[in-house]
């Protein structure tokens, strides 16, 4: 038990060749339908990683279940394809156990806001330092087309043949209210904009949500590319102040001829869960620390029992 753990900083960095987007290509090609919005998200993330100078082994990409949750298999990094709705819980454990990794969580609206809604709330309030990219297509695709938590009212699907009677969740306002410190919306049809937001999100310390309109060309005929192309409007073009949460919520709730994308809200001075966790103050990543109890610790514990 006497082996010393070397802090990461002391390891000499070796010069590495700059990577290209194809270096982040996974072992297999995506199995998404031709035209799926998720392709744009994949290429944007790959491009963002290149721009940020990240390397595949420094990244852990975690997903749940659903079409978009197949993402880690198409992306070259360490990856976990976990249970439906549980990606954020797994990611919190992984991020806290090795906070030196760059953690992406990728998934869909059903996975994240439906079955995983509880974890969404709590991961946001804990301000876990990770980037959560939700490919929001407002439909359950892998189960062949039923309403999701973001489906609009009156939407006709196989489970709502006469139209949905439920109001959708607003992921942006929900995230802000729950304490997320970086909340953005993007459209997968605008890869350049999305890439930039991903880069900002990774650089942001804390819980970052990017809700991406990622059209399902097979099962959602209501919210397709033309629908968004005609409507999306960038907050950046209006000089929105991301520090203003009230205006952010107001703009996030606009859903009509105009739908805002961009960075709604950011709080840069909020400590992350890791910052508040004294166990992480020194000693590097939990996962790489020396295991077990020292003799002195053992003596102290047993003495208290006597």
């Amino acid at each position, binding site marked *: *038990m006497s*082996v*010393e*753990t*070397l*802090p*990461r900083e002391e*390891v000499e960095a*070796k010069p590495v060749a700059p990577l290209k987007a194809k270096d982040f290509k*996974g*072992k*297999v090609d995506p*199995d998404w339908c031709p035209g799926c919005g998720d392709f744009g998200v994949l290429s944007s993330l790959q491009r963002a990683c290149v721009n940020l100078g990240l390397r*595949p*082994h*420094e990244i*852990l990409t975690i997903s749940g279940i659903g079409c978009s949750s*197949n993402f*880690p*298999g198409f992306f070259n990094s*360490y*990856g*976990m*394809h*976990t*249970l439906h709705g*549980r990606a954020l*819980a*797994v990611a*919190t*454990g*992984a*991020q*806290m*156990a*090795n906070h*030196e*990794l760059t953690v992406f969580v990728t998934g869909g609206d059903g996975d994240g806001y439906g079955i995983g809604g*509880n*974890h969404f709330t*709590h991961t946001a309030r804990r301000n876990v330092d990770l980037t959560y990219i939700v490919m929001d297509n407002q439909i359950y695709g892998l189960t062949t087309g039923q309403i999701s938590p973001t489906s609009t009212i009156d939407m006709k699907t196989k489970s709502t043949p006469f139209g949905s009677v439920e109001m959708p969740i607003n992921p942006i306002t929900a995230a802000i209210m729950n304490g997320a410190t970086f909340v953005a919306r993007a459209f997968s049809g605008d890869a350049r904009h999305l890439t930039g937001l991903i880069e900002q999100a990774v650089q942001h310390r804390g819980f970052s949500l990017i809700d991406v309109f990622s059209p399902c060309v097979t099962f959602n005929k209501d919210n397709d590319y033309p629908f968004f192309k005609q409507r999306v409007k960038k907050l950046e073009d209006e000089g929105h102040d991301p520090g203003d949460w009230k205006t952010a919520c107001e703009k996030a709730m606009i859903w009509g001829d105009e739908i805002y994308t961009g960075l709604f809200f950011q709080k840069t001075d909020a400590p992350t869960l890791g910052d508040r*966790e*004294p*166990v992480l103050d020194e000693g*590097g*990543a*939990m*996962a*790489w620390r*020396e*295991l*077990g*109890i020292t*003799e002195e*610790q*053992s003596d102290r*514990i*047993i003495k208290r*029992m*006597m």
Partner: protein
Amino acid sequence: MSSDKFDFAIAIGGAAGQGIATPGNVLARIFIRRGLHLNAYNAYQSIIRGGHIFLTMRISDQPVSNHGDKLDLLVCLNQDTMDRHLGLMGPGTRVLYNSDTITPGTPEDGVHLCPLPINELTDNNRNKLVQNTVALGTILYLLDVDFQILEDIITMQFRRKGQEVIDENVGVARAGYDYAAAHFEPCSQSLPSGGKPLAVWTGNDALAMGGASAGVKFYCAYPMSPSTGVLHWMAQNARELGIMVRQVEDEIGVANMAIGAAHVGCRSMCATSGGGFALMTEAVGSAAMMEIPVVFIDVQRAGPSTGVPTKTEQGDLWQILGASQGDFERFIVAPTDALDAFHTLPELFNLVDHCQCPGIVISDLLISEGTFSVDPDAIDMQPGIDRGELITQSSNGASDIPTGSQLANGHGLIGAPSNGYLRYVNTESGISPRALPGVEGYAHVVATDEHDEDGVLVSDEFTNPHKRRKMVEKRARKFKNIAQRIEPPALSGASAEDAEITLIGWGSTRGVIREAVEILHRDGVAVNHLPIKWIVPLHVDAIQEVFDKAKKTVIVENNHSGQFHRYLRSETGLTADGHIRKYDGEPFMPHHIVDGVRELLAGTTDIYVPYQEVIV
């Protein structure tokens, strides 16, 4: 227990909020420091104020494996305790009570009633808890213990509250002590001194300490009785020991968070009770599919559903056996007492690391919330740690992850080609070297979908039956001959030839069955005992051998349907001749089993269900 031993049981009864814990803790400290063995069971209800709490503390100069059959001293903190339990007291016993507020019932002949005029003794002190301290003084006089010992403990107990509080408590304890000296006859047995001083812990402390000793660096939980003590120990010690402790939004989150931490390299653990474990079950299978080592603890309480949250049962066995869909490999172990639980965790962590699979510990309220003495020298917090086949360093040396890490404990560090690393490479042992995220050249995806050796899913696009079969068999091979790594159960008591009955129990019943066997032996009934600890793997051959030689087999378990019996039948085809079952929420007492054996030998029944005399 033979009569030449000191064997004494004190019960303290009152309502929640009357402060039973403090005199209980003070007495426990006095006893263990004197080297006396202790086994305490606290019967209580799911209520913060009111209700009825009944703490039974059995002490002896010999090890005590259960809370026993009899009471020698009853302390009534309220009328309810007097009304409920006076009838349990036999000749030679003593009953303490506050004579200002409690009216004694009619005791059996030979019971010594010891009324304490609390108001007079405490100058009308308004603090309602003061009667507990008076009772402490009285108890120690009756056991012939020097008052100085109590004074020292009280001083320690109240040191944070200042000298005034210490003086007040010492004063009233002294009053109780002196009043007893003037008015009551001491107990026939005075408190002996045992050997060296012992330590005291609960089963939940032991589970937590076992995990910490095994190198747990990540612990998370959602509070749920009777498992919460593990969370409390971990939280209390987290900073000193460098353990990440998280309270999570629900048990689904707990299990998945533990898996996330385990995947990146922490030894990771979580504990819950049956209802919480139900929420964790999907994650158990995911750990098996992704081949991530993680330990789940289920502290059983009486079910089903919310059940009886503060009562014990062995009713979760089939839930645990059936936890999560599909066929998969996992360890299931039911420790037999607190010290065994402590030793089990490091062993289980080495096994789950070796096999890269989940492990489940089955405890119950009896073990987890019981208070026990323990020999401090038996607590080895530095067990061997073997992390199995882990890849922690890039083979080309290009990793910027710290090298030479402790993860090389055992045969941790192995070389493998960085090109074409297959996370689930199909080996003869079924074990595939596991690269931790962060190591350069080994990036891979683990998946809850069925996957090929390289981690690529086989289930979505092109389901391949041959790949599927290969991977099912690869995982299954990890458990081939795995029982050889684990100690088989051993028969104790009378020889196979002599025993009229062979008692088979599992988990927490070991101690009480062992004492029942001793009692029957003294009465001339030859009985032996096979305690089962490992549920999966199950030592089928060892159990078969015992059944082959046994004249009459009886399974003892704390549930209604005979869950272990059904499991044994399913795995071995063996059927027991009789059963002793208890499912009223309270644990077995030795005489319950003794009476059951007599009934079963007489042939009056096949299933004996004892009557619970102590009603709480």
